[in-house]
């Protein structure tokens, strides 16, 4: 059992960071919230899994789509004009026509983050969004995320990233539970 008697209230806005040892159940929690895993018992209230956007731990970029296409693939046509803004947010301006194979690891991670943020959602679930991203850049992007229009639940191990979050929850498990 990865989760048992686990309860979490997410505020309307801001960044909630989750920190805990590997294998404690953070990723499972993210997958449950996004509807990719189904709990044997328990419910989500006020939000459905269809209203969440999950950034996977691995990038899962489509190798045959360019940077801008990765974003337009998830955006409705009426919002295609937001692509430059999203690229600016994740510091990928100028890379619109590049394919994932031509990007560095950190750039791919930021592209995956940008694609997740392009989704319209009431809750963003970011599983290690800055893995492989250099710290100064990660902190700049994190600063921009603080004013994002919807709450963000974020998993990270970096103390500097955690310091930018509004709330930091220390977790342990399994079964997953909040220490502080």
């Amino acid at each position, binding site marked *: 059992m990865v989760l048992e008697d686990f309860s979490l209230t997410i505020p309307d806005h801001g960044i909630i960071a989750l920190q805990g040892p590997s294998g404690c159940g953070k990723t499972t929690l993210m997958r449950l919230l996004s*509807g990719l895993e189904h709990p044997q018992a328990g419910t989500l209230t006020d939000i459905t899994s269809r209203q969440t*956007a999950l950034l996977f731990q691995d990038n899962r970029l489509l*190798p*045959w789509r360019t940077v801008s296409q990765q974003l337009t*693939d998830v955006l409705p046509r009426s919002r295609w004009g937001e692509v430059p803004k999203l690229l600016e947010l994740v510091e990928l301006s100028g890379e619109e026509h*590049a*394919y*994932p*194979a031509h990007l560095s690891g950190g750039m791919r991670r930021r592209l995956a983050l940008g694609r997740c943020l392009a*989704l319209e959602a009431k809750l963003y679930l970011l599983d290690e969004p800055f893995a492989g991203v250099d710290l100064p850049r990660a902190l700049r992007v994190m600063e921009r995320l603080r004013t994002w229009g919807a709450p963000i639940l974020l998993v990270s191990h970096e103390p500097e990233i955690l310091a930018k979050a509004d709330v930091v929850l220390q977790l342990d498990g399994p079964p997953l539970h909040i220490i502080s």
Partner: protein
Amino acid sequence: MEWANPLKNLVQKLLAPAFWLGVWQFCAFLVDRSVQGKGNELLLPYPATVWSALLEQAEQALFWQSILATLLRVVLGLVLGAALGAILSALTCLSSWCDRLLSPAIRVIRAAPVASFILLVILWTGRSNVPTVIAAMMVLPVVWDNLSQGIRATDPKLLELGRAYRFSRKKILTLIYLPSLRPYILSALTTGAGLAWKSGVAAEVLCLPRPALGTQIYNTKYLLEIPELFAWTAVTVALSLVLEALLRRAMARWRKGWGT
């Protein structure tokens, strides 16, 4: 001094054909010597004799009509077989019920002798449709098999991404399945094109539609015109290679720019 690249490429490309042409010339010479110039053309004609026969045929309208008619039949068979194979592979991969029902039938088609099918299809559809139907039946199991493997090998993580990011069915097909299937489609079509040619021309030889390459090959056998038989065979092989090259080029264009 190093050769210029285009010249080097040309020499490299011509080396193998020139070698085999030499082997052919030498073997024809040996045959000619063993029969002491009496009827070597019936056993193994010289390349130059075949070339002359080819040029002679090319002056007749029937030559070009035969090529065009066979090309149309084979391409139509390839398209029909590929389309049916693709639909069946999707059905058998998506539904275990369809898989249980259809897979044995497709395996029977793959294992059954072409000649039996040709004779049956002559009875069912009439002689002019036989090459197309036979070509389609030969291509179908190859495309089905390749695409089924490809569909099953599609990265489940990308499919999960499509589900999590609420991709429509059309997007899942065009953005995930089709690009992932590209190598399988290429393999299926190139193998299928070769099979379509072989089986289509074989069907023409047996059912003799007019005009047709197969009918011309049958006539050369009937009249013991062996240089002409070689010439028609060379035309068939050349057309098959051209079709395969065109398919490869089309698939390469599809992939162009992925940067992988």
